[in-house]
């Protein structure tokens, strides 16, 4: 009998450290976020709140959600617009552009060495530490000393066309936000797609060529349809990760404590998650910040369900009956 018990218990024993991590780093914060979202917790009542934690004395309120949905917070509309712009544009780079890039690298580039060099080039921003990547951009776009303006001038762009500040002047600041995130984000899709393209049996591509397809038609009619699952995966993953990501915006636009709120907002790069972060850690409105985050979670889950419906998730998850 102990042997049988061991069989049941042992897996969980091995999984325990991981499960503990998930509970501590994911489940607990999620519950906390939900809970805090319905309170008016801020720096002012923090001590009292800790004392009354999870008791009836904590005041529960819908005020946070009223602020968001009834536009009592004047910044909500603008934040939402910037978030949609950010997620949609960077997603199109990370999922769609990365797909074209991968086909170019893994299919049209027949030379294996060149293909590898291209892949590594696109991986560089990802393997660079984030803060250095951000710094490089800040130096790169510096209007006086940066390389970008010098390059544009050398290419013959008149001085008058160059913005006085890439960092602050809209829409350049927003273009910059998209570029910074897209450049680092495209490599994720590229890794997934190139691996998937390389795993397509060469016979299938050869068959299409013999059937009379041009290289371009092979890409469009054979390769892309076969990448359905990777495309779903990258799109879903990237949407969720973009919705909650703000670190590069914070690092580039948010130098100094407390100051980031002003700069990011006037530059038009204040995305929802950064807004939530600012509310929590610059204005110390923990309850309100949690409510803002909670909305992101709900949007994220809704999107997942939507994606799975569109792509026929269940069918894709079935064990495949044959190898292609």
């Amino acid at each position: 009998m102990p042997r049988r018990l061991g069989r049941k218990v042992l897996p969980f024993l091995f999984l325990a450290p991981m499960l503990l991590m998930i509970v501590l780093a994911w489940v607990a914060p999620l519950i906390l976020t939900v809970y805090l979202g319905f309170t008016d917790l801020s720096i002012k009542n923090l001590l009292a709140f800790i004392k009354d934690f999870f008791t009836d004395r904590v005041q529960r309120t819908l005020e946070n959600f009223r602020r968001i949905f009834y536009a009592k917070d004047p910044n909500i509309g603008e934040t939402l617009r910037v978030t949609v712009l950010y997620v949609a544009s960077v997603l199109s780079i990370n999922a769609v552009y990365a797909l074209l890039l991968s086909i170019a690298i893994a299919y049209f580039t027949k030379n294996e060495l060149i293909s590898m060099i291209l892949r590594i080039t696109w991986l560089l921003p990802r393997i660079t530490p984030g803060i250095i990547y951000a710094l490089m951009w800040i130096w790169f776009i510096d209007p006086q000393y940066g390389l970008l303006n010098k390059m544009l001038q050398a290419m013959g762009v008149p001085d008058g066309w160059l913005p006085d500040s890439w960092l602050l002047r809209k829409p350049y600041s927003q273009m910059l936000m998209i570029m910074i995130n897209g450049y680092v984000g495209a490599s994720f899709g590229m890794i997934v797609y190139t691996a998937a393209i390389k795993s397509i049996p060469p016979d299938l591509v050869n068959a299409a060529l013999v059937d009379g397809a041009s290289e371009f038609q092979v890409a469009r009619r054979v390769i892309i349809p076969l990448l359905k699952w990777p495309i779903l995966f990258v799109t879903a993953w990237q949407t969720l990760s973009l919705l909650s990501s703000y670190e590069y915006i914070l690092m580039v636009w948010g130098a100094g404590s407390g100051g980031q709120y002003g700069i990011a907002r006037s530059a038009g790069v204040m995305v929802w998650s950064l807004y939530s972060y600012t509310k929590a850690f610059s204005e110390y409105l923990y309850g309100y910040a949690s409510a803002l985050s909670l909305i992101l979670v709900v949007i994220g889950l809704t999107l997942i369900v939507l994606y799975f419906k569109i792509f026929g998730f269940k069918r894709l998850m079935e064990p495949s009956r044959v190898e292609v």
Partner: protein
Amino acid sequence: MVRVTLDNVSKFFGKVKAVVDLELEIRDGEFVALLGPSGCGKTTTLLMVAGIYKPTRGRILFDDEDVTDLPPKDRNIGMVFQSYALYPHMTVYDNIAFPLKLKKVPKQEIDRKVREVAKLLQIDELLGRKPAQLSGGQRQRVALGRALVKEPDVLLLDEPLSNLDAKLRILMRAEIKRLQKELGITTIYVTHDQVEAMSMADRIAVMNKGRLQQYADPQTLYNKPANLFVAGFIGSPPMNLIEGSVVEENGAYYFVTPSFKYRLPKEIGELVASKTSDVILGIRPEDIRIVIGDGDDTAINGKVYVVEPLGRDLLVNVKAGDTLFKILAPADLQLESGQDILMAPDERKIHIFDKKTGKAIV
């Protein structure tokens, strides 16, 4: 339909020489098999004809047109792959229609042709299915349909039967042969199975290590193998190949090994002795007669080692000294292990190869 000519074609992958100086002509409407062990360059050759690989050297001609630099889509070829390579995301109908769609054939015409081919191959019931829902044999037919629907000038088949079970393979063998004769399409068929090649092809090109060994009709390959490789590769059970030397004693010629001595017919002996002395003697299992009791003086003494009944006949393993012979004998012959017998090779069916070059002398 066209005549396909491979003019001194070579293909190297880095240092690997996949195909070396291949000269081959396939006549209009002919069924030619490329036969050889895996890695002999036969599939590479096929892919060069298809246009997937570009030859490192040499030219490929369809009739008199040089197609060496033409991409596959401009060659009008149909091809069936070993893995079938059906598009998993398309139905059977769309798979077959794919080459026509790429040619921008009108929709009604596509529909007519797809149904026609499907009917010919008896897969008209399956048109709505996806490849994953088909059996191996059905997939094979769909692949064949996709290759035939565009009415190709050349049909290329890369081991199309190797994924089928033995029974279905024999069935499809006959069917492909009949279809090829009916449609009269110039066909190149790659296989490592000599029975397939022998039973289907008009002519067989035997390849080994990237080089053409012999190109002839099945009977010639079987009866007059050009070298040791062909002799050993064609025929099942394979030809007995025995190392030895030819010596002359008192005007008679003998094939001598440490285990036995065999008197060669005079004219053969003279011919061989004039060229070399180190030779390999080849004799097919069905060309040796087993004699119990007294035989003539050319017979070889042997001891039955083991008997394998094959149903229609017996495969008898006989040892003469250390040399093992495989002999096909009538099924009703009564033999026991250890029994002493005589082996009488059919003089007219003896092959002798030069040991150094491997080339046939007789």
